[in-house]
């Protein structure tokens, strides 16, 4: 009887660009890496609802309000796609949420910055979702099937997010002097935090090597960051705004911009819990989960009662 070498089968799949599915054998470290990455991604979607939700009641028009509502609802949906993808790896939803609520799991550093003005809502959609798209387009080809498929759905929906943000920026940048200043101020505050979203420089990124080897990621943090800058600078120029980086310069040789790195010490502070809004975000998540307790209990009791009636009949 022929025995199957599972490791060879797994490596063979990666080599042939085939997807790994939940029931397939996979190395334990691959599973762990995916649980960490997918759950962080899911937590980021859910926590990301908070800074934007902050402006729903204060949106300047009914149109901008319904658009922002739809956008924030999408983020909730994206979190749910990702949580179910993570659950296929053998971790429960309760455990995932518990890891977020106790601070054991991380989420994107970007959501620990406050949204101070309406222009921040524009900047978040335009820059933060723009950076997220760049990362997620790549992840549509990730080697783990459920993750890649969730990404396909998410990418389809993200492009609306970035466009609505750019629209907000356009209105402000071409509005009154004060509105333009507000747009510039938001760009000043969100530029570097957005650059941090791609993660630490390749040389210092602890998880990159495995992610590339296992074809979860296909481009490095630095490659994606460069791509983002190249794509975004012409958009800033269109708006008549200025990138808050005196070193920013087109480099004809590499056909891309040279730019300043974000402050990585600040990044480390934020991911270790000391950003401007870390405590507020975690408290809001815990409160929402706690406040929803009775809804879950009631839904469970209702389902149980109906089942009993059904079984008795």
């Amino acid at each position, binding site marked *: 009887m022929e025995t*199957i070498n599972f490791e060879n089968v797994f490596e063979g799949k990666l080599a042939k660009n085939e997807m790994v*599915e939940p*029931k*397939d*054998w996979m190395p334990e470290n691959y599973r762990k890496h995916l649980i960490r990455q997918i759950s962080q991604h899911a937590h980021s979607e859910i926590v990301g609802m908070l800074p934007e939700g902050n402006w729903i009641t204060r949106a300047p028009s009914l149109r901008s309000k319904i658009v922002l509502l*739809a956008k924030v*609802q*999408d983020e909730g*949906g994206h979190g*749910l*796609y990702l949580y*179910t993808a993570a*659950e296929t790896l053998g971790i*429960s*939803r*309760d*455990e995932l949420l*518990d890891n977020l609520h106790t601070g054991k799991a991380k989420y994107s550093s970007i959501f620990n910055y406050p949204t101070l003005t309406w222009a921040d809502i524009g900047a978040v959609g335009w820059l933060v979702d723009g950076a997220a798209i760049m990362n997620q387009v790549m992840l549509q080809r990730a080697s783990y099937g459920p993750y890649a*498929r*969730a990404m396909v*759905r998410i990418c389809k*929906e993200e492009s609306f997010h970035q466009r609505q943000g750019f629209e907000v920026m356009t209105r402000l940048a071409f509005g009154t002097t004060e509105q333009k200043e507000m747009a510039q101020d938001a760009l000043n505050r969100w530029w570097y935090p957005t650059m941090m979203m791609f993660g630490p420089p390749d040389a210092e990124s602890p998880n990159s090597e495995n992610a590339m080897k296992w074809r979860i990621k296909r481009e490095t943090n630095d490659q994606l960051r460069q791509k983002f800058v190249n794509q975004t600078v012409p958009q800033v120029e269109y708006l008549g705004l200025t990138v808050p980086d005196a070193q920013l310069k087109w480099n004809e040789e590499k056909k891309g911009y040279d730019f300043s790195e974000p402050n990585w010490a600040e990044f480390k502070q934020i991911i270790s819990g000391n950003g401007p809004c870390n405590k507020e975000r975690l408290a809001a998540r815990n409160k929402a989960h706690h406040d929803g307790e009775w809804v*879950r209990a009631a*839904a*469970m009791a*209702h*389902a149980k009662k*109906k*089942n009993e009636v059904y079984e008795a009949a």
Partner: protein
Amino acid sequence: MSDNQGPVWEVFVQKKAGQPFVHCGSLHAFDKEMALQNARDLYTRRSEGMSLWVVPSNAITASSPEDQGPFFESANDKVYRHPTFYQIPDAIGHM
């Protein structure tokens, strides 16, 4: 840890009348009505479908990847089940 989320359901969406139902993902819900409503809110926010199925995940039995070879093998040597196995004279045209 206690289960606070309800069981997992698999969601199938039919894009247009007459088309097959295609698996699009899963979700948690406490009963079938809730599963259907959650499926609508989660998977058809942009009119992606006109009909939905929700099936409790534990009701699905799947073939196992390890047995893939032997399990499907018997179809491999039955080339005569394909139309290309047969030679049709040019003179009669399309068949």
